[in-house]
């Protein structure tokens, strides 16, 4: 019997190696390392269907520092992560997106044009490669925290490119708008979008120059989970010109829970918190805002935290709530606008965050403005 | 010398303590030797030292002119078999498979026809054929003991080492086991050494006796060395030695 078994193992091994060889030759070999300079390139001649003229291409550097050669202009793309889809829509290229992930499509109001049955996977780390292959887009756009390497290698034989755009990365806003504008050939509308928000960013910077910074405690949708350096949302707090009380002496902690006593010790002048309605998938938000009661309850809960009534923020009723859905607009510059105005109302007379949100919703997303995503404690008490 | 087991100057340590030292004896093949002594005196250690399961500190052990300690483990395994005290079986295994393990020192990988025949014969000889495909863990302690004896015999040994073979058995099984070993010694020239603490069982079936006391060989020889004086000195118990039906009986004086 042992001879049979050993023969079987040899056979299995041979078969596997044979298949690997087949797989290897049929695919355009993608190099294993995905370090900065390398890119996945399919030699155009063996993959593209027969066409008279060679399609033109464009080479761009993405959010992960990868240099990618894309067909120009991109006509079909699939996108993971809703911030990315929002950016693309703001730049005026959403018609080129043929499918998204479940985290995006779950919002049936905001993303009604996408079918939740026809998604490319649950999220940027759980991609359905077979589906993507079936849809045959020219490029997959996903953020840096997705399975970038894996996607690149798996989709290489299908000639589908992988491009990284991290819609939540406030500090990369310029690059993102440029890339979207260039790849989809919508440079004009992308520029317009960029300018609108860049103006706001510059206005805030100008007005706050030389001014003493106020201390702010930022909390995400998870209680006691703060936004510190290394967190993707930290860029947002930087642009808003506040002093994040956890930007120092917190070298190693990125998104984890902080000690409530530390918050008290660091004496925040303001508290800004994110909330999201219960029916949203973990880590996402919905177009329909949560009930006003949820805002009221959140403020009450914060005030009730033991010892927190000693902080300037609670004493002066400077507590502000915004939703997961709304703050993320334009790489979270919408969030920056609100934070800046809440914290420095007198220094930013020309900044009306509600108008910013309206513009974002109506002009750039093509949606009716909807209220109820931003509240200050004072407004809630009224 | 052929036909003799010569143990010379065997010493064993456990850490810094000496368990026994300078144990020497000569045993003709076909003998059934009982290793006697109180608990903790080192009977089992002596047994395992002969079997090379512990490496002895010093000494030699020569069987039929072959130096057992100088051999490789598989070579030794073809001359010497060991019957353990405990018969715990953690994983399910059939009796026949367990017995076939005794051919491990001989087979390359798969038991050959000759191996299987040997195993089947031994099972039949010990009256265990009906149990051949039963699971070890479903047998009684006594039956398992018999199975392991079968395994030892399948090794075709010339020397059989038994570690407290009767401790966990009922009266009938005790007698049966000792009788089987004695017959094997008589009929097939097997030499057996058993570490045992039941003096009367030893006296009933063994023809040679070695008493270990305080790390030394206190006595070695035939049944005559089992004197009440020696037993009193070694075991701390006053006894009388009687004869009944031509056999010696050790009777404790209570």
């Amino acid at each position, binding site marked *: 019997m042992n001879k049979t078994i050993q023969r079987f193992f040899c056979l299995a091994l041979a078969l596997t190696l044979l298949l690997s060889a087949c797989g290897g030759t049929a695919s355009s070999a993608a190099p*294993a390392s995905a370090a900065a300079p390398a890119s996945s390139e399919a030699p155009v001649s063996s993959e593209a269907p027969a066409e008279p003229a060679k399609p033109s291409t464009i080479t761009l550097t993405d959010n992960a520092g990868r240099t990618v050669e894309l067909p120009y202009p991109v006509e079909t793309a699939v996108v993971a992560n809703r911030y990315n889809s929002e950016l693309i829509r703001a730049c005026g290229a959403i018609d080129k997106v043929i499918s998204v992930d479940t985290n995006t499509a779950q919002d049936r109001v905001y993303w009604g044009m996408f079918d939740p049955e026809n998604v490319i996977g649950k999220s940027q780390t759980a991609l359905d490669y077979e589906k993507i292959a079936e849809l045959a887009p020219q490029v997959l756009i996903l953020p840096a925290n997705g*399975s970038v390497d894996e996607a690149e290698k798996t989709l290489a034989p299908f000639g589908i490119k992988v491009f990284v755009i*991290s819609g939540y990365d406030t500090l990369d806003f310029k690059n993102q708008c440029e890339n979207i504008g260039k790849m989809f050939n919508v440079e004009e509308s992308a520029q317009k979008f960029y300018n609108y928000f860049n103006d706001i960013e510059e206005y805030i910077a100008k007005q706050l120059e030389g001014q003493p910074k106020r201390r702010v405690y930022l909390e995400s949708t998870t209680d006691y989970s703060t936004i510190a350096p290394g967190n993707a949302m930290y860029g947002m707090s930087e642009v808003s010109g506040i002093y994040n009380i956890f930007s120092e002496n917190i070298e190693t902690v990125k998104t984890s829970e902080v000690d409530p006593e530390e918050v008290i010790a660091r004496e925040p002048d303001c508290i800004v918190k994110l909330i999201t309605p219960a029916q949203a998938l973990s880590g996402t938000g919905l177009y329909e805002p949560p009930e006003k009661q949820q805002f009221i309850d959140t403020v009450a809960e914060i005030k009730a935290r033991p010892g927190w009534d000693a902080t300037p923020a609670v004493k002066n009723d400077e507590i502000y709530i915004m939703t997961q859905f709304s703050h993320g607009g334009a790489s979270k510059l919408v969030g920056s606008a609100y934070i800046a105005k809440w914290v420095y109302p007198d220094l930013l007379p020309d900044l009306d965050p509600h108008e910013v949100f309206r513009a974002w919703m109506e002009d750039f997303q093509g949606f009716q403005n909807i209220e109820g995503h931003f509240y200050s404690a004072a407004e809630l008490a009224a | 010398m052929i036909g003799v087991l010569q143990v010379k100057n065997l010493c064993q340590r456990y850490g810094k303590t000496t368990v026994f030292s300078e144990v020497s004896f000569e045993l003709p093949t076909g003998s059934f030797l009982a290793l006697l002594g109180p608990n903790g005196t080192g009977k089992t250690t002596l047994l395992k030292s002969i079997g090379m399961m512990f490496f002895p500190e010093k000494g030699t052990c020569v069987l039929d002119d072959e130096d057992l300690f100088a051999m490789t483990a598989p070579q030794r395994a073809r001359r010497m078999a060991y019957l353990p005290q405990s018969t715990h079986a953690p994983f399910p295994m059939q009796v026949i498979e367990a017995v076939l393990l005794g051919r491990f020192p001989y087979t390359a990988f798969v038991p050959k026809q000759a191996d299987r025949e040997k195993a089947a014969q031994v099972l039949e000889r010990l009256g265990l054929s009906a149990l051949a495909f039963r699971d070890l863990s479903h047998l009684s302690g006594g039956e398992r003991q018999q199975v392991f004896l079968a395994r030892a015999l399948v090794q075709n040994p010339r020397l059989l080492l038994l570690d407290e073979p009767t401790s966990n058995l009922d009266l009938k099984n005790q007698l049966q086991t000792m009788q089987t070993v004695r017959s094997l010694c008589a009929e097939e020239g097997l030499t057996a050494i058993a570490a045992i603490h039941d003096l009367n069982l030893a006296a009933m079936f063994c023809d040679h006796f070695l008493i270990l006391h305080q790390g030394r060989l206190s006595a070695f020889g035939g049944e005559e060395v089992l004197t009440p004086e020696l037993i009193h000195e070694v075991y701390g118990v006053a006894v009388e030695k009687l004869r009944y039906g031509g056999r010696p009986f050790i009777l404790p004086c209570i």
Partner: protein
Amino acid sequence: MSPKDGAAEILREYDSRRAKGLFLILGGLALTLVLAVWFTALGAIDTGWSDILHTLRAAAAGQELDTGQKVILHLRLPRVTMAILAGAGLSVSGAAMQGITRNPLVSPFTIGVSNAAAFGATLSIVFGVGLFPGTQAGTVLMAFLTAFLCAALVYLVSLRVGLSPQTLVLTGIAVNYLFSAATSLIQYFADEHRLAAAVAWAFGSFNGVEWSEVSVSAVVVAASCALLYRYAPALDLLSSGDDEVARSLGADPNRVRVATGALSVLATAAIISFTGVIGFLGLAGPHIARMLLGGSHRRLLPFSAVVGALLALIADTIGRMILAPVMLPVGIVVSFLGVPIFVNLILSQRKGA
């Protein structure tokens, strides 16, 4: 069923059982192959059996493939092959580990090897520690290294106390908790975008495996399993009684433990490094095999491989089909699938002889 007295009777029965065992193993193999072909044809894109053949022929001839064929060649076949390799490799490793420790609760998962590999991968992903940081090759290498580090640690500690099975198990369990906690600690402190990758890795899935990974895995797993098979008689010895008995029969328990332990770790690392942590297979595969075919390792090892491969293959396919387009990680499905089978067999054991 119980034979009457007679050596000849025993021999006949033995031969017939051996034949049945062989039949079961080969039958299992055949079933695995059949299912492999069937499952390769299943998916979002409609394909059939013949498509698979056409794909292979076309690929061998170096022809241009259409999307459906590419899906078969680059997405489904590697995935199915990896599932079979992972199931077989983890199961055989588990069987060997259970044998040398005489402990039915042991598996590559419970004694730390899987979590050590996860730790290594997390180090590479999050901190860029080790060789070729940030690349997949680097992650795999780190996973291998830490898996061996774990095994070495367990061995060295046990060696001081005589390398007994109990010490191996206890040390393994302790080390398991250590690596598991260490991995969690890293994730606790990780940058957000690295965190997602690290967490996803710890989940265990065959999604996105490709041929280069499958080849490495195949070579290592096949070699380890073949070598482990040669230790089958020694494993029988070690698992059936104390070390003394093994020594008296001519085996060197320590050497066997080191060799088979190393091979098991190698096979496990070769799988976990690519797929992430998958539990249950290494524990249940051998047990199911043992309950069906008995404990003789010459049969147990190959049959464990077969059982493991079947479990992994079926679980993976269910995972990707049942809630399409959402894909459930195989680690989750395999427990749901395997536990009822396992429990059922346990219950039926009570009635049997």
